């Protein structure tokens, strides 16, 4: 049975072209780029090319920094903790404004900084599942707010935040703005030349690059205390030998992501919409968020009367990989904070299933997935104590 991978918001397949580009940097060109001898220096052209691709991919200028790090969790920690050391600890700006639906790496970093004296405001999302500029405006106090951090697109729902407008509000108020763009790169146009963000984070494995490498954009002239202290790598802003093969891979992945944006917007969206239509054709189902307001690849669906873990178990048995935010499927059994913040009913918090496509998803896969979903829903509803047909 050919398995169908519909969990691309968790991670993606590495594009074979990315893997190929990485290949020479394991056994042939393995020098440390900080070495002065030829083994080190021969790496530099490939690194420069990779950096060019990253800068070009997000529209960064030569005077901006893109710090290469291990993942978006690291980048987000770097921004939040850097701001703590640079601003909050000194006062009087002691506040971080963020949302209730951020990824755990932002939420838990904020919670940690609260224990050190930072004040954190978690903005609610509106009926559309996003934060609008007026809400942000109300929550900012230029005398007290050190940083605003809002994700570009939500990992669970795919809902896209109005990042340009939010960044402009911050610019106007003179407050620093960070966005976690992990779910945006490769799905939406991300251009820091047009969107005045100060910090932006991304991770290669969400756009068909390898796991374990990411980037942090820092607008020119901004200071950010390092998270990792050590050698002079990344201009002293992030110590640790650069993961050369992965940087090369991330560069190619970024270029491919940008080249495929149009395909993503048309073809992936079309497949996503087809799957969504098939899901909605199953009685008593719903999908969270207007599809026009979402990344082109994401569906968060709810099947009434079916608990999420049971559903993904059944789908997995039938070769379809999806994910659930159901508390019963997490190691801790804690409810998913995003679902709680979205004010979605308690039932949805236990029934939500996320399907996320990629440019590698095929028409045939989507057809088969749609059948498997309908089959699982029917089987589990037949055993469900809380689903009666026609109710």
């Amino acid at each position, binding site marked *: 049975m050919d398995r169908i991978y519909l969990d691309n918001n968790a991670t993606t397949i590495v594009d074979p072209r990315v893997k190929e580009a990485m290949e020479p940097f394991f056994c042939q060109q393995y020098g440390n780029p900080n070495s002065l001898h030829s083994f080190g220096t021969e790496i530099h052209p490939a690194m420069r090319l990779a950096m060019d691709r990253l800068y070009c991919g997000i529209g960064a200028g030569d005077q901006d920094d893109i710090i290469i790090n291990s993942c978006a969790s690291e980048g987000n920690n770097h921004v939040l903790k850097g701001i703590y050391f640079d601003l909050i600890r000194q006062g009087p700006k002691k506040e971080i404004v963020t949302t209730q639906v951020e990824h755990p790496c932002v939420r838990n970093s904020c919670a940690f900084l609260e224990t050190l004296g930072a004040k954190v405001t978690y903005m609610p999302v509106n009926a559309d599942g996003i934060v609008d500029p007026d809400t942000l405006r109300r929550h900012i106090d230029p005398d007290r707010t050190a940083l605003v951090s809002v994700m570009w697109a939500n990992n669970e729902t795919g809902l896209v935040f109005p990042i340009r407008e939010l960044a402009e509000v911050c610019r106007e108020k003179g407050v620093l703005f960070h966005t976690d763009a992990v779910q945006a790169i490769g799905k939406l146009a991300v251009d820091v030349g047009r969107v005045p963000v100060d910090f932006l984070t991304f991770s290669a494995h969400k756009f068909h690059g390898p796991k374990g490498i990411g980037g942090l954009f820092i607008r020119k002239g901004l200071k950010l205390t390092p998270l990792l202290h050590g050698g002079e790598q990344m201009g002293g802003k992030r110590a640790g030998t650069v993961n050369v093969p992965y940087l090369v891979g991330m560069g190619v992945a970024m270029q491919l992501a940008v080249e495929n944006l149009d395909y993503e917007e048309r073809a992936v969206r079309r497949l996503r919409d087809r799957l969504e239509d098939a899901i909605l054709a199953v009685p008593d189902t719903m999908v969270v968020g207007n599809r026009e307001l979402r990344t082109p690849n994401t569906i968060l669906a709810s099947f009434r*009367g*079916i*608990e*999420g*873990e*049971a559903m993904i*178990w*059944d789908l997995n*048995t039938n070769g379809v990989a999806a994910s659930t935010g*159901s*508390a*019963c*499927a997490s*190691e*801790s*059994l804690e409810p998913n904070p995003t679902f709680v913040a979205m004010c979605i009913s*308690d*039932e949805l*918090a*236990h029934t939500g299933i996320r399907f996320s496509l990629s440019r590698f998803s095929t028409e045939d896969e989507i057809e088969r997935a749609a059948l498997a979903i309908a089959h699982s829903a029917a089987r589990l509803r*037949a*055993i*469900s*104590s*809380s*689903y009666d047909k026609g109710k």
Partner: protein
Amino acid sequence: MAKNDLIGGALWEQYSAKVGERMNNPRHRGEISEEEAKALGARLVVADWGAEACGDAVRLYWAVDPATDRILLAKFKSFGCGTAIASSDMMAELSMGKTVDEALKITNIEVEHSLRDNDETPAIPPQKMHCSVMAYDVIKKAASVYKGVDMASLAEEEIVCECARVGLRTIREVIRINDLKTVEEITQYTKAGAFCKSCLRPGGHEKRNYYLVDILRDTRAAMEQEKLFAQADAGDFSAKNLIQKHRAIEKALDEKIRPALAADGGSLEVVDIRESEGTVGVYIRYLGACRGCISSTKGTLQFIENLLRQELADSIRVIPL
């Protein structure tokens, strides 16, 4: 466990093959209709437990022979995760063929054990024990429906840990008998708190009437009190603390000495008790006729000291002030 904990995503790997099999193909899923029950000459019992909002709900159907109270057929429906489906299936299976009273003895642990592939390996991970294994509660509910009684009347005692089904009395006993000092020890001895951990302390998955931390604290406090009382009442004077010694001395004085002194119009009071190097110094002040009495530093003093030594301990020395 550390090495195994670092990778994560191991939830499903902790399910036994039997759990997986029953998640995929539950044998006793479905309903029993009035007609089917009637055809068996049985009474239909339907019981619901849990709530969708909590993530797990189960409905149990029994066809019970009214003459023998025997459960002829059992089926279930479940809104729940895979483990809830598998454990409900096993619960239905275990109840079949038993009388209602026998079924009431089925525990969640028994359901879990029946789902194991081998004796040593748990069928489901500990955190899933509580919320997904609801056998005992729904059976109790079904039995109460069948008997037409209140569910609470079927509970033989207060259950502190639903997962391992350990009662309040057992936990208190184990703490006392084994002189347990930590919650971890209670878990080691009884398995209470080893699974969903709701009963360890407030703030877990579920609100409980009793938490192990409180039971431990209260039982230890009661034990401490009893120990003090026992000490106070014990014959061994040297084991008593200062206050208890004072009491014992006053008691001996009241019973044996003060009446004799009073016959001569005198008395005494204890001013201080000082312990040093194995002796207990009792500092007294004579009152009434005893004051200035010539015998008070000689014969009477000797009498008092001998009597206290005889009654309480040889280590006592009486010092008049």
